[in-house]
């Protein structure tokens, strides 16, 4: 379109948006669609009876108008409106990135974030988790959710920051397997609640017997990304330690796929060491998900980043901040699996002196270093940082929640993608009371957290689809999931799970991850195939036996009728024939 071609300066594009600077109209505009924002003059022209732009190209309209009227922005006029925005402001407008795009999902995400935090806290403190999850319906679309744990509690000073400040957390900076990663989740949930209902987040926490229980009502100041404490007092609370979070929000409670019910059930499957009491709207008594094992998963260790996983920007930052005095030392100390020999090789390949001062490495030198890293063979990162669920635990988790007859599970050895260790686990339940005509139910988990949205975009689904399940005895239509009475449980554990978006719904399909997924699925598939074949043989035998019972008497009747035989002969014929046939099917 000519309008687009005539746009003179890319920098003046009204849609230009960065995290730091953003146009004021955009901030005030109630719409999340930047494309629809109309600059002042154009808006005036429109109000004065300007022609409506064709809907197919709304984004070309503002620039075209500005051009025609000759009233282009100047750098100065724009500068007057450019100012910093806070991350919380940014996320207020982009809440869909965090999983709050619709009311049903918002309810699920809020609960999910609170549960993730509770489970992480309990495990870090070495406590077997007991969780209470309550959803109370206040009005048609209004809910009060509460998640309570028996965790270590939160130190008084930290409470407001954890719940009232985005990007505040302990997990972002560490390479260690955990449910939460960025420190956005629970504060974003609180912010969503505040935005939709105006109500504060309520937090009740106690760090131990003899210590007071602190009660807070907190709101987030979205401009400053800082907590505002509304109420702060000490209250009576029975549990010796733990945390309770309550958020009031606008949402939708539904059953079925994507439901909170499903999420809680899947969480119970993937965390058999955890006990959950779940109350939901319309439910009479809280639903109990009992604990299937008394052993906590082994505590994951923190590791240093592996050179293969680091990006250029991060590398430059690490070199600037290192405490090592020379380049080789920095490589050795700040990364895992870099010996002095490997550090030497990297420096040589990058044509840099090992003794160079890491703080004065120029950008082009860092770039050489970055390329050199990938040309040197470096040992895979340590995998002690991973905490897989384990075959036995997967089986115990599945057996208590899935009414199947046959179960199998496999935990693969750890592998590495882009320098990040990961581990794939697959569990399978087949037969029993599972519906036999439906498509296979694929339960996806990342670091023990159920993934319920964006199924088709996820590496797990792609891996399941890439396997020909027909060779294992299931039916499978082209391009569809296999059909049969089966539930697949697929778990990826990693220090950094590569999600396709911040709402953590789908896993990116790195070749290494796909390969491991396929191998694990095929392993379970082979066991399933053997099971189905054995089962079919058995059924066949049964059928044959009943065939003999059912039809041989009719041969007797027919022969008696044709030959006018006495009944004694008929009975003899039937008995003999049965013996002859029974004998013939023995050789199995």
């Amino acid at each position: 379109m000519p309008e687009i071609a005539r746009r003179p300066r890319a920098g003046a594009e009204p849609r230009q948006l960065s995290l730091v600077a953003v146009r004021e109209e955009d901030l005030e505009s109630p719409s999340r669609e930047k494309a629809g924002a109309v600059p002042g003059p154009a808006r005036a022209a429109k109000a004065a009876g300007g022609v409506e732009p064709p809907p197919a190209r709304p984004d070309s309209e503002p620039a075209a108008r500005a051009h025609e009227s000759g009233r282009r922005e100047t750098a100065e006029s724009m500068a007057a409106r450019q100012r910093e925005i806070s991350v919380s402001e940014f996320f207020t407008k982009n809440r869909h990135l965090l999983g709050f795009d619709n009311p049903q999902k918002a309810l699920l995400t809020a609960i999910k974030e609170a549960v993730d935090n509770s489970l992480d806290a309990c495990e870090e403190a070495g406590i077997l988790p007991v969780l209470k999850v309550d959803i109370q319906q206040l009005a048609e679309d209004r809910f009060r959710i509460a998640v309570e744990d028996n965790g270590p509690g939160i130190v008084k000073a930290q409470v407001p920051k954890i719940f009232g400040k985005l990007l505040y957390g302990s997990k972002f900076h560490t390479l260690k397997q955990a449910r939460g990663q960025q420190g956005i989740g629970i504060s974003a949930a609180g912010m969503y609640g505040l935005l939709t209902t105006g109500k504060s987040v309520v937090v009740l926490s106690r760090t131990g017997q003899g210590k007071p229980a602190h009660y807070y009502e907190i709101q987030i100041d979205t401009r400053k990304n800082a907590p505002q404490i509304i109420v702060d007092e000490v209250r009576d609370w029975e549990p010796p330690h733990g945390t309770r979070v309550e958020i009031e929000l606008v949402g939708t409670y539904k059953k079925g796929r994507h439901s909170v019910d499903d999420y809680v059930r899947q969480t119970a499957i993937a965390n058999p060491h955890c006990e959950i009491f779940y109350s939901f709207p319309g439910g009479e008594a809280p639903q109990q998900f009992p604990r299937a094992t008394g052993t906590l998963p082994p505590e994951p260790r923190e590791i240093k980043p592996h050179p293969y996983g680091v990006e250029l920007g991060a590398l430059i930052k690490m070199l600037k901040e290192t405490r090592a005095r020379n380049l080789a030392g920095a490589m050795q100390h700040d990364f895992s699996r870099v010996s002095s020999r490997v550090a030497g090789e990297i420096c040589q390949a990058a044509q840099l002196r090992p003794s160079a001062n890491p703080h004065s490495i120029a950008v082009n030198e860092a770039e050489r270093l970055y390329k050199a890293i990938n040309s040197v063979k470096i040992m895979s990162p340590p995998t002690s940082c991973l905490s897989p669920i384990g075959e036995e635990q997967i089986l115990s988790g599945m057996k208590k929640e899935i009414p199947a007859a046959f179960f199998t599970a496999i935990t693969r050895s750890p592998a590495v993608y882009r320098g990040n260790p990961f581990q794939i686990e697959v569990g399978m339940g087949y037969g029993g009371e599972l519906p036999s005509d439906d498509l296979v139910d694929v339960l996806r988990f990342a670091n023990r957290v159920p993934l319920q949205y964006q199924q088709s975009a996820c590496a797990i689904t792609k891996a399941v689809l890439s396997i020909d399940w027909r060779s294992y005895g299931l039916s499978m239509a082209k391009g569809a999931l296999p059909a049969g009475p089966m539930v697949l449980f697929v778990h990826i554990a990693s220090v950094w799970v590569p999600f396709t978006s911040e709402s953590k719904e789908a896993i990116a399909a790195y070749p290494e991850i796909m390969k491991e997924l396929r191998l694990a699925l095929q392993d379970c598939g082979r066991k399933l195939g053997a099971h189905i074949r054995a089962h079919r043989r058995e059924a066949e035998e049964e059928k044959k036996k009943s065939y003999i019972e059912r039809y041989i008497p009719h041969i007797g009747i027919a022969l008696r009728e044709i030959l006018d035989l006495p009944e004694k002969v008929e009975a003899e014929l039937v008995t003999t024939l049965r013996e002859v046939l029974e004998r013939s099917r023995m050789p199995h």
Partner: protein
Amino acid sequence: MPKKKTPVPVMAGTVNKDVLKAIKSSALDIEKKILARKKPTMKFPVRSLSNVKYHPDRGYFEIAGQKKERTLTVNTVKTFAQTLRMIALSKDLVENDDIATKREAYYVSKNWEDARFLEQPESDTVMDDVEAYFSVNREQLGFIPEEKGGDVAGRLVVLDRDRDTGRVLRIDCTRFGTGAYSIPITVEHLQFETKADFILVIETAGMFQRLVKHNYWKKANCILISMGGVPTRACRRFIRRLADFQKIPVYVFVDGDPYGITNIYRTLKVGSGNAAHLNEFFCVPQATFLGITPQDIVDYKLPTHPLKDVDIKRARDAIKNDPFIRYHKSWVSAMEQLLKMGVRAEQQALAKHGLNYVIDHYLPEKLSHTERFLP
């Protein structure tokens, strides 16, 4: 199993000692085998087009001798039991001079508990097996079909008998007005009187109606017979007996499409693959093909429809697998011509040139050159 070289189709309801004997001896065979602790077997001729031979001098599809053996095993026990019960039913019918239609036999099986048939096609298949097993006509076993034989009008007197009085009934087929005489299910007992020049066998009831209404048989001195699709055994047998009786030529007038040629005409002339053991009696080898030929479509500028996928498949299949079509080069080239044109034309397409064009032009023109008819 009994070897019966020359089975003679007879009127249903007549006790047939030979059939009874054959039934009993086969049952005795089975009984002996069982008591000897051996698995009993039954041998059936394979009933399909792949198991027939075409002898032009004999003029019909003959069974080629392939047999399938059904041994009583765990997997065959159900069919085996059903086959034996069907034979027992047949024995009962023959002994008591009774008959059962295919559908009635199916309903009788509902007393057989687990061995009953769920759908009639299942019982029909078993009945066909039994028929082939004894190499007899199913009417001899007491089973009669439901289907209607066909309609007749024209220069023919059929001699039938009154069941009560035994008196001969003279049925004059010129005296049905705009209606017609209906061919009965069994035709062996019928006799004929006729001075017709030929028999014109027609596929569709619509064309038959036109020719009857305009007394075409009077004009052409012929007998008109409507088959209404693929001719039934009774219809084939009726035409055969009538044609044999006074050596009257038989001309067949069907739609110009693969179904009309390979299914209707071919079955009438040489029989079917399914009943190959009986084709000898249920075929009309003297029949020739009047139309509509692929060439007629060109010569008479007939309106056409494109060949459907099933038509194309049927035509290709006939060229490749049908022993009758393959034997006659003229038929192969006619089928190829049809495939090349990619169209089909119905009998009634002649109406394009005027409703009675068929009577005034098409039939007289064709009949003046019967030597050009396709075999």
